[in-house]
């Protein structure tokens, strides 16, 4: 069975910037409540070099983040390794982490990035209504993606009162 990591990153103290963290937390809760043990979870403010070591221990990695100015409310894309660096070392892109992982540990997990569109990034909580809807949509999409990756049939059914992950 494939070993899978869902890694959310962002700042939950800055409204919609915390969408990636919230997705990881919600999926972890669903997995725990349903005895689904295929997934590991990780969360942090941003990605950095040590995450190359973290993802090297998995077959599949799903990064989750907030997105701005993106065409769709939720987008999932395959991540390809890239050596592109940024102006500072304070935050790194999933593609850079994947590239570093391959360079340092000779492994390259199948990697995806899930971005959920956010609109407000001020100090404070909670996330906006639109972001909350996008988060719920992302949960369903991630469930479908996990089905495709693992071959295990499960789906997230969302309604306002309960969330269940069936598998």
């Amino acid at each position: 069975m494939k070993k899978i990591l869902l890694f959310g990153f962002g700042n939950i103290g800055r409204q919609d910037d915390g969408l990636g963290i919230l997705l990881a937390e919600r999926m972890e809760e669903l997995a725990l409540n349903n005895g689904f043990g295929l997934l590991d979870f990780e969360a942090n403010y941003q990605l950095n070099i040590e995450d190359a070591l973290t993802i090297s221990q998995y077959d599949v990695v799903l990064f989750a983040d907030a997105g701005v100015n993106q065409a769709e409310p939720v987008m999932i894309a395959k991540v390809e390794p890239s050596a592109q660096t940024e102006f500072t070392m304070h935050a790194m892109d999933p593609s850079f982490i994947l590239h570093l992982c391959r360079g340092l540990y000779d492994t390259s997990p199948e990697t995806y990035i899930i971005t959920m569109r956010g609109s407000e990034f001020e100090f404070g909580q909670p996330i906006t209504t639109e972001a909350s809807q996008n988060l719920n949509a992302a949960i369903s999409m991630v469930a479908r993606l996990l089905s495709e990756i693992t071959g295990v049939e499960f789906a997230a059914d969302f309604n306002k009162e309960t969330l269940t992950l069936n598998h």
Partner: protein
Amino acid sequence: MGQKLTIEPVTRVEGHGKVTIHLDDDNNVVESRLHIVEFRGFERFVQGRPYWEAPVLVQRLCGICPVSHHLAAAKAIDIITGVGPDGLTPTGEKMRRLMHYGQIFQSHALHFFHLVSPDLLFGINANPEKRNVIEVAREFRELAVQGVMMRKFGQEIIKATAGKKIHGTGAIAGGINKNLSLEERDFFKNGKDPMNIDKMIEWSKEALQLFKKYHLENKEFVDGFAAFPSNHLSLVRKDGAMDLYHGVLRAVDHEGKKILHDIDYQNYLDYIGEGVKSWSYMKFPFLKNLGKKDGWYRVGPLARLNTCDFIPSPLAQKEFEEFKAYTKGKPNNMSLHMHWARLIETLHAAEVINDLLNDSDLQGTDLVAHGKKCDEGVGLIEAPRGTLFHHYKVNSDDLITMCNLIVSTTHNNEPMNIAVRKVADAMISGQRSIKEGMLNAVEVAIRAYDPCLSCATHAMGKMPLELSLLDATGAILDRKLK
């Protein structure tokens, strides 16, 4: 016709920073400006919140160094709770110190391996495609793995002391909410190679040797690049020792003369002012006794080694003596020596962590001290990038009514502007197009200060580094992206 060069780094949702270099009709640099966003939005946000929430709330400020804000706020709140800076229990203070030195260690290690080592290993003039940590990983894999593990070690220290990676709750009003278990201590002391403190000390020494070797081979560049005289400011221990967690505030001028005499930072407003300029949201701090024109100063690793009298750990002290001897005991004003200073501090942080791990006070159970509440407090800490000020006032309902923060990047505002000007004078004057080396040189000058340009939030869809050459009408003559 005058021209303006614009370097526009990563855009964040709260704004962005950029560099503008203004040329005259003969293409000589007449002015350079570094613009970086400020945190005033947060200072308003925190008003009306209970004061004891501050150490957790302030971590919303910055996902880069949340521990520094966490501890600076906690120190201010200690004052408000009547505990005072010297009133913590031994376990409370030492756990906070362990958290802080873990933060210093991981941040400095990251800066060295990710940003500095490519320049040292491949040379500043190497192809930009080669000067990055990916190439370090390819050609010097062992060194790159060391960088990852040093960063991870520091992160694990933070997790063990702050309680969790995000919005840690370790430091609370008057103390700490947990001690260090024996299992946690043994993980750091005797962890499976390489995850133990002995290996971290060994690697810190090796990183220093790498810098010194490069310096020896490239003295003219390392000593001359963006070098300029300045004042220097930092905390020092009351006996003059380096202390990154607590002390008194000292400043020296470029010759080493004390210009701020070990003051109690609760009174910082008597000594430090904040100037404004029309073109930047970021303020320009200065020493009031010298005025706005002459009172600006540097903070951070270079400043700290210039202000302290000695380093209270043997290996770092030996390196400090060599560092001081290089400038014959005078302050070191060479911008790229910031990297040397940062590596000496990395070694010092590892030694402090080692000492703390051997201190049984970390397993104590007396975690919180209590005192008589007052309505105002100031907390200072030496964050990785320099001195960090947190100042709060509260009312009788325990709600925050005023918050003033001066972060390291703000202290270094004027020095970074001057560093960019130095580079511009040397590399850009007389040019009509943007050469790759220009962009790199401006980056290297700013990066030496490790400014926090992206301090609180991030999202996908960021803008790349942009350098544009514009004429007086705003038309783009040349443009480069990174």
